Every structure is written in structure tokens, then in C-alpha cells.
């Protein structure tokens, strides 16, 4: 059989599909059917592709099981073993019933993800319409290298919406304004409320406890702004205040943050000193009394402000990184067990070791082994830093200057020695010069501006779609090179057909349409070029392949 490594859960013989006898296999991840006497499957569906199964009603002559796929296609199996047909079918049905839900989640997630991507990205959606709906390529091919993120758990930038962080100053953004009659107006936006909730979960809890059954939303926020909780530099917290509990919770949170201690031993001030002097020794500084009893009101208010800033910043920081934080924590934990087991004779927490290594590292003293990158070579870094500066009139040159510089350039040219290892081929150079000379392709007086004006917007839009779709197809095509597996061989051939089909069904009609509208500019020349390049590449590859085979 095709793949023996798979676990086969159920085998049902004498199952007909498309009027052919065969055997049905239910495997760990897919259902498959192969015709009698052949050792390969002609039907194979991963469970995740199956939307649902249907069975023929009891009492019907044919005992059947139908699988409906997410794509809308369906496959019907006919259980033909006269004596056990019903039993066979039910066994298969039962097993599928157990298996499908397990894969459904994954499939649904994938589908949802695809759906979401299409909704969020109109360009992608258009591309999907152009390529898949018009059947230039199959849906599978379309998603093949787009959905990498969903399957590998490595989110591609566009299918993971970046979460917006919290401004550190969101409380300050609520500028109170006097409303003219002895009151204050606070401007609250949904963003600010969101920020408050994310930073101070205690407030969110109060909110969900009290709104709307005890307080209206407005009352809630009014109280919030009146509370000492908001004006934290005021000291006494009234017991009436519904937010006094929040303050206590914050206090607790801060305390637990502090007692948790720090992970990086290099910033742990508690264990900094190897040996503090024994009691009674040392030049004594008047030790600050930490008890609140003999602190003035002003002092304790000041320290309340300081505490508040630290807490606020810590909370904002935590709210911003809450999502990504967990996995790294786990990672550091697992690595910690690794480290300990490896050198148990010399016990040192790995994080500490890492931090120490980091601290003593001189990266520039070591040979670089990072890949070489091309650095921007700036002739005038000032202009890069400040942007172009308009020429001052006095910087304009006199005609004498111009003559001088022309002769200087002539001289330079006379002495010019080409760096032969780094030059373009002469044809490429000529074509580049031609393209950049007046009248050349890139220097036509009909600039982009005028194309904009000459070509109606709908045509422009259509052209854009064509470009995107063609680009996508070509991307698929070129990604097959170098063709070194049978799969790629198959794909590249298919892609070439796809390209041709696209040219026929999409590009041709568009060209005709453009001609009909008597637009003189050759809008599709470049597209055609791209197709031709692909074809010739394909041709070369094919001839080589033939030669190798013969």
C-alpha cells in the first residue's frame, strides 16, 4: 500500500465508488479508497477537509455514506457486501463520528483564518477571485505558501494583527476641562477605557461588578474620577469609595511584584553587596526611617506619587507584553532545567549565567560570523539625516563655474578606468542607457502623470488586478526553480499551463478591450514581457530536461 507507516484504523472491503469495487480505509488522519486489485488510492481525503458525513436513510436499497467536503464537493461510497453492508457502514460512520470533530477544530480554524485573511485584505481577495474562482489555479495551490503561518505556528506578519500597545500617558490624556459652571468634564474615549481596563484589571472587575445593575456607565466613571484612586497623591482613602478596594489590590499587586524579586541577578540590589558591614561599623548615614509614623504628610504623599509611577509603568509594560510573555517564560524555565542537569556539580541558575556571559561579551573583539549585509553608502550623510535642502540662490553657479565643471568632467572621463570586475554586460548597459536617454522607455515625455489622465480609472484598476494576479502566478512559477524534485517538475509544468490559461482568459480580453477603446499606449507590454521571460525559461528547462533524458 501507498504508505504503510500510517496507522489503519478500519478496513472495509467491498465498497463501491463510482461503480467500481474497492476497499475503504480509515486511517489516523485521512479516509481513503482504492479500487480492487490496485495498490494505490484513487480517493483520499484528510479528515480536516471533510465538512460532514451523510448516510442513506434506513430501508433504502443502497447502503451509502456520503462525505461532504469544505469545498462543496462530495464523495459517495456504496457498501456492497450484502450480508454485512449495514454493519460495515455503521462501523465506518461511528468511527468517522469520533474522528471528525477532532479535526474539525483545526479545519475550522484554518477556514476561519482564510476567511479572515480574505476579508481583511481586499487585494488578496481580488487575487483569489482572479485566480481561484476563475479556476486558473486550485484553492490548495493558492493557499499553499500563504497559509504557512497557520500551519507552522509561525505567524506571517499579515495574518497576525498586531496588538496596539498602551500609551504610558493615557491617564494624562484625559484632560479635565471646566465646563463653565464649577464642574469638570473628563474626556473618555473607548481607547482610554480599554487602556484603563488593560492596565488596571481591578477597575475592570469593579466595572463588571457594578455596571449596569448598580451604576450607569456614566456614574461609574464619574465616581472613578472623583475617587482618591484616581488622585493618588491625596492620601486618605475613604471607606465609602468603591475604588478603595482597587487601591488595596494595587498595593498587593505591587507587593507581590516586589516579593517575586528580579530574575536578572545583575540588577538585584539586595544581593549586590558581598558583605555589608556588621552592625555598628561604618560611617553612619542617618538611616532614613521607613516607618510611616514619623513621616510628614508631604513626605508620605511624595512617596505615594513615586510608588504610583512605578506601579503604573510596570502595569503598562506588563499590559503591553502580556501576550508574548508566557512562551518566553516557559522557554526560560525549560532551559533552566536543562542547564541544571548538565552541570549539576556547578550549580548556577542559567539565566544568571546568560546575563553574566552577556555582560562580559565584547562582540567586536570576536570575529564576526553574521551574514554580510550591504550597507547604505551615503555620500552626504547630512542630506540623509535632514532630507533634501532647497538650493540657496547664492549656491547657483556662474557660467564660468559651469564651463569649469564641464571641462573637469571631460578630464575625468578621459582618465576614467573601468573597474572591470564590477561592470554590466555591454548589452545591458546599452539598453539601460537607451532606456534612460530622452525618448527612452523610462524617459518618455508621457510620464506617469499623463498615463493617469489618459487612461480611465476602471481600466487602471483592472490593469492593477491583472498585475497582481500575474505576479502571483509568476511567483508560483519562479518558485519552482531550481526544479529538483518530481513534485516541482509537475508543478512547473502545471504553472506554465496556468500562465498560458491566464494569458488567454484574462490578458487577451483586456488587451482587446483596451484596443477597442483606442488607447494608444501599450499598457500590457511589460506584462507580456514577463510572460515571455517565463516561457523562455520554461522552454530552456524543458529542452535541457529532454536532452538529459535522451
Amino acid at each position, binding site marked *: 500500500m501507498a504508505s504503510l507507516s500510517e496507522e489503519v484504523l478500519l478496513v472495509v472491503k467491498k465498497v463501491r465508488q463510482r461503480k467500481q469495487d474497492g476497499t475503504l480505509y480509515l486511517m489516523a488522519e485521512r479516509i481513503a479508497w482504492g479500487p480492487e486489485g490496485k495498490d494505490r488510492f484513487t480517493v483520499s481525503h484528510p479528515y480536516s477537509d471533510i465538512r460532514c458525513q451523510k448516510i442513506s436513510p434506513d430501508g433504502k436499497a443502497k447502503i451509502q455514506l456520503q462525505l461532504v467536503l469544505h469545498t462543496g464537493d462530495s464523495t459517495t461510497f456504496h457498501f456492497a457486501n450484502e450480508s454485512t453492508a449495514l454493519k460495515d457502514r455503521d462501523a465506518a460512520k461511528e468511527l468517522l463520528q469520533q474522528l471528525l470533530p477532532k479535526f474539525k477544530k483545526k479545519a475550522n480554524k484554518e477556514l476561519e483564518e482564510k476567511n479572515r485573511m480574505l476579508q481583511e485584505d481586499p487585494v488578496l481577495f481580488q487575487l483569489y477571485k482572479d485566480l481561484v474562482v476563475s479556476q486558473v489555479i486550485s484553492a490548495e495551490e493558492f493557499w499553499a505558501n500563504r497559509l504557512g503561518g497557520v500551519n507552522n505556528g509561525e505567524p506571517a506578519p499579515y495574518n497576525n494583527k498586531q496588538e496596539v500597545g498602551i*500609551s504610558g*500617558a493615557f491617564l494624562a490624556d484625559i484632560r479635565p476641562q471646566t465646563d463653565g459652571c464649577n464642574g469638570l468634564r473628563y474626556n473618555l474615549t473607548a481607547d482610554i477605557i480599554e487602556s484603563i481596563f488593560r492596565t488596571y484589571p481591578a477597575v475592570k472587575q469593579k466595572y463588571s461588578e457594578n455596571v449596569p445593575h448598580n451604576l450607569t456607565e456614566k456614574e461609574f466613571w464619574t465616581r472613578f474620577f472623583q475617587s482618591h484612586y484616581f488622585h493618588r497623591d491625596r492620601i486618605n482613602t475613604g471607606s465609602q469609595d468603591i475604588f478603595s478596594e482597587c487601591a488595596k489590590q494595587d498595593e498587593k499587586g505591587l507587593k507581590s511584584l516586589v516579593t517575586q524579586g528580579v530574575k536578572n541577578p545583575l540588577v538585584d540590589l539586595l544581593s549586590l553587596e558581598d558583605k555589608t558591614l556588621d552592625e555598628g*561599623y*561604618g*560611617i553612619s548615614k542617618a538611616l532614613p526611617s521607613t516607618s510611616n509614623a514619623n513621616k510628614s504628610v508631604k513626605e508620605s504623599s511624595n512617596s505615594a506619587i513615586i510608588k504610583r509611577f512605578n506601579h503604573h509603568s510596570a502595569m503598562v509594560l506588563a499590559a503591553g507584553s502580556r501576550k508574548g510573555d508566557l512562551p518566553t517564560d516557559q522557554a526560560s524555565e525549560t532551559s533552566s532545567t536543562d542547564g541544571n542537569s548538565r552541570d549539576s556539580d556547578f550549580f548556577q541558575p542559567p539565566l544568571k549565567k546568560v546575563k553574566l556571559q552577556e555582560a562580559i561579551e565584547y562582540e567586536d573583539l570576536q570575529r564576526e560570523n553574521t551574514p554580510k549585509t550591504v550597507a547604505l553608502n551615503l555620500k552626504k550623510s547630512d542630506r540623509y539625516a535632514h532630507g533634501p535642502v532647497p538650493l540657496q540662490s547664492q549656491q547657483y553657479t556662474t557660467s564660468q563655474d559651469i564651463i569649469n565643471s564641464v571641462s573637469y568632467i571631460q578630464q575625468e572621463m578621459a582618465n576614467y578606468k573601468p573597474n572591470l570586475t564590477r561592470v554590466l554586460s555591454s548589452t545591458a548597459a546599452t539598453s539601460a542607457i537607451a532606456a534612460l536617454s530622452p525618448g527612452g522607455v523610462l524617459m518618455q515625455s508621457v510620464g506617469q502623470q499623463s498615463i493617469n489622465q489618459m487612461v480611465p480609472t476602471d481600466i487602471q484598476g483592472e490593469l492593477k488586478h491583472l498585475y497582481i494576479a500575474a505576479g502571483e502566478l509568476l511567483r508560483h512559477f519562479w518558485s519552482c526553480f531550481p526544479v529538483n524534485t518530481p513534485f516541482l517538475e509537475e508543478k512547473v509544468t502545471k504553472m506554465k499551463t496556468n500562465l498560458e490559461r491566464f494569458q488567454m482568459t484574462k490578458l487577451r480580453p483586456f488587451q482587446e478591450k483596451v484596443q477597442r477603446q483606442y488607447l494608444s499606449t501599450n499598457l500590457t507590454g511589460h506584462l507580456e514581457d514577463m510572460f515571455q521571460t517565463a516561457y523562455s525559461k520554461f522552454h530552456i528547462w524543458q529542452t535541457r530536461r529532454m536532452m538529459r533524458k535522451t
Partner: protein
Amino acid sequence: FRLNIEGLLVYFPYDYIYPEQYSYMLELKRTLDAKGHGVLEMPSGTGKTISLLSLIVAYQRAFPLDVTKLIYCSRTVPEIEKVVEELRKLMEFYAKETGEVNNFLALSLSSRKNLCIHPEIIHANIVVYSYHYLLDPKIADLVSKELAKKSVVVFDEAHNIDNVCIDSMSVNITRRTLDRCQNNVDTLQNTIHKIKETDAAKLREEYRRLVEGLKEANVARETDIYLANPVLPDEVLQEAVPGSIRTAEHFVGFLRRFLEYLKARLRVQHVVQESAPQFLKDIFDKVCIDRKPLRFCAERLQSLLRTLEIADIADFSAVTLISNFATLVSTYSQGFTIIIEPFEDRTPTIANPVLHFSCMDPSIAIKPVFQRFQSVVITSGTLSPLDIYPRILDFRPVTMASFTMTLARTCLCPLIVGRGNDQVALSSKFETREDFAVIRNYGNLLLEMSAVVPDGIVAFFTSYVYMENIVASWYEQGILENIQKNKLIFIETQDAAETSMALEKYQEACENGRGAILLSVARGKFTILARLEYLRDQFQIRENDFLTFDAMRHAAQCVGRAIRGKTDYGLMIFADKRYARSDKRGKLPRWIQEHINDGSLNLTVDEAVQLSKHFLRQMAQPFRQEDQLGLSLLTLEQLQSEEMLQKISQMAHQT
């Protein structure tokens, strides 16, 4: 790779080397060759530690008879651990290069828990531990007493070494100390009684030993076996313990009398300051205690505790403290001052008398170290002005050098901001520091900088109280709110755990790109007036010179942390118009000073912001190893070229 430092083969565990590392090693080798002491300044981030280790280890291997041991002292636990890590790296490199398993024994003491490792210390080739193990006589006597004379001692991060010395020799006595001491004395008395009944012979044996005197210790010192203990003065060694305190009972009685006297002295209404001789005269007048038995007090107590076989010495810390005080006050007629205060400054209504016995002369504690060990090297990123350290520590160095940081691009930008945009002078001097306009201008400076500087800013204040006040008024003026729009704010508190948390969060915010500001306090030790007078009279250092030196070394310490290495970059903003004066900025380390030009003096906030913007944009350009090579980073071939060697020696000789 391997280096040739004036004929010494040095293994250096990196592929490249900074020119200043080469110069540093050269200077260090000359110090060792001369068997003398050295003062070396080299910026942090230029690989000072690895240069030191590489050279001294190489020296030890080449001349095992001349240098038997390296004693490496650093200040904090993380620093000690870093040194150990670098040493490990070096040893791995040796193993790899030479192919032989190293028989070097290195030992690090980074916690009091693993004390009492006497034999290991004696046999280790390298010992890494905290300053206190060498400078605090109480610990040095236990740990470092028997270290060989032919050792090289390195004090890294030594910019505050004088304060460590002073701290280790100073004593404070409160009523609580005296009460606990009273209990100790009672316990001693009871124990003596018990022993007398059961084992009187033991006490007689002790008496006999005391008549013999401390001759044994004296022999040891004269034959140079031990590191001297400043609490055990020479005179004590030559004489027998005076008869008045020779028997155990007499000694306990003597302690009681001394204790009563101290209790009486603590009953004061106003601040009293006196010198050691004045104190001795007073104690003789009042309770007839002579100078001589006082001097023997510490040693006599140790002997008694040994005789009584008291296991837990920690319980007797109070009586030990008092007897140490007795010995010190009677031994040193100079270099100490006694101040008795009836209450704390902040709480004048609560009586809490304290007797401060303050050491003013750091050379007392470090003297045995300089005398005993062949080479002592004092080094740090900031030791300027270099010549003041030999003066206050009273030693004669054979080498003194300050190395600058060779840079392929100017990656540090010191700016002196002297005015606000409103032209009001910016200064934290006492007269104007509470000025509304000054506080606002400081706030504006921080606010504007928070908008320009990527990632992190640390702002240092002169004291905690001052920072608290400024934070409160910035809060009222809405400045902090505006800063929050750019950066998160973390503030140091008086609680170490809370501050650690803030520090870690600050780092996290800088690393993840969020950006943060840390408001912190530059912890200067306040210098007592008496010390200034002492410095003037004893070492001819004028009060103002010392204060400036003290202030500038703290400033240098603060800004010196801005860059971690040559690939890093940082702004250093001195926000006080006083820094613009040449007598002040002239005391900054050379590697900072040489980047201060006339264009960076007495700037307004706006000007500073413009310069910062320009600097930061330049720093944002890619910086690669190739850019450094041949200038601030050398390959072995480059280092060996005649031209480069000349250039390096030229640079080094600018000092």
C-alpha cells in the same frame, strides 16, 4: 591570540584587541617588573578585566617564583561573578591553545557563607573576592592573614576605595549597642564563674600565656608571615598584657567600667566633637582608665573568648565592637574623630544618642596591604584625577596612567547644559535648587530629551530627598504627564527590593523598544567636616579640591555607565552650569574630557536637544567591524606593525 608584551607571551582569548588593552597590559607588566604599586584608569567597556587577567596569569606562568598569587578584589557580587566568568573563559582558551589541562587553581569567595576555607586560599593561584576580605581587619584577620607576600593585589572598581577603608575602621555606638554589650559582659562573667569551679587550670594557662605576651604574633609579624592587622598595633605585640586586665575577672570588671563611662557619655544634650587624645584624657580623669589596657582590649577579649571556648562569636558582636573601639581610640591619636549626637537630624524630638567614632584616614586600613604585598594595582574606569589616590591612600606608585578609549566614531557625546531656554541658570547648588524656574527647566530638559533619545534615559539626583521634592513638583506642573507620553517612568525608592523591581522593568522597557526613564540617586557619601580638615592638615589637600574631586568622581561614575563598549553609544548630559568651569570638568576622566569641546559648554536646553538629535542620527548609521579595524580594533598583524606600535605608545604617553 597570543601577544608579545615586552618579551612576555600572553594568551588573549579574543581574535582582536583594542589598542588601549595593549597599552594597559604593557603598563601593568612594567608595574609587576618593578615590584611596585600602580594606578591605572581605563574606561569601562574596553575590556579592562580580561586584560588584567590575561597579563597576570601569563606573568604567573612565566615567573612562578616572582608572582605566586593573584588576589583580585572587586566591590559587588555581580562584579566578582563577572571576573570569575572571564577567568573561566581565559582558562578555556589556555586549555585549547596549549592542549594541556590547566593546573591553575582559582577560588572565588562571594558570600560570607563560604568563609573558613583557609587552606584553599593559601594554595590557590588566583583568589577573587570582595574588598572587605582584605580591607576590613575583622575579616582580613580570618581570611587573608596568611596570603603570600609575593602576591599581586588588584582592586578593581577602586574609585571609592577610600570610603571602603574608612567604613571598615569606623564604629558607631548607640544605647542599644551598650545594652547588648551589658548582656555580653554578664554572660562572660557567669561563664568565668562556671569555668573557675570546673576547670580553673584553663584560666591559669591563659594567664601564663598573657604574661608571655603576644610574642608569638610578634614573631610572625617580624618574620613577615602574616598580613598586619591595624587593630593589633605594634606596641601591643612587644609588650605583655598589662596586669590590670590579665585575669579574666579583672578584665570583665574593666569592661564594666568602660561601659559605664560610655553610657554616661551618651547622656548629652547637644552635639559634642572631640579628638582621640581628648577622649583618652577624659576617660582617665573620670574613671581612671589608662591608655595602655585600652589598647590591649581587642586582643584580650579574643583571648578570653577563645579560652572560654565560646562557639558562637556572633552573639558577642556588641562587646567585640566596644573592645575594637577601645583599641582603635587608644592606638591612633590621629586620623579619627569622635562625635556624639543626642538625636537624629530628622527627628530632633526623639532622644537617640549615637557616638560616632569616624575614621578620616583611609590609609590606616589599607596600609598593611601596601606594606605586605609586592604589587598592588588600583584600577577603575574613573580614577581621575589620578594623583589624588596615592595622596589619600598614602602610597608611592611606580606607574600611573590613564588610558583613553580609541574610537573609530565618536560614540559618546558629553554636553554641559547650563541654562534653560529662558536663560535662567541651571544648577542644583543649594541656594537655587528649590527655585521654581530651576526645577521647571530641569523638567523641560528631561521632557525634551525623552522625545529625542531612543530607549533609555537615566537621570541622577544629588540626594533622595531632593529627588522626591523634584518629582512632586514635576508632578504638580504636569511635566511627568508629558514625559509619560514618550517614555515610561521608573523611580528609585528607599526600598531596595522595590528599586530592584523598578530597575528590571526599566531594562525590560528599554530592551523591548518601549523606552523608559529611570530617576535615580547618585549615592555620594557625605563627607564630614572633620575629614576635610584632616585632609588639609595631613595631606595638604584643600577642602574645595577634595569636595570637587568627590563630586566629580560621582558624576563620572554616573555618566560613565552610558556606554558599555565601543559599539555602543550614549549621551552624557551634565545639567549644572558649574560643570562648565574648567576646574570642575578638568577633573573628569580623560576619556570623557577629550570629547568636551567649547561648543558643548553652557548650552541651553534647546541647543542641547539640537546637538543630541544630530548625534543620535549619526549613531543610527550602521557601524561595522571593518569601520573599527586598524583604528580602535586591531588584528594581531596590525598590532605587530612597527607603525602601529609607535602610534599606540604615542597615545599612551599623552597622559
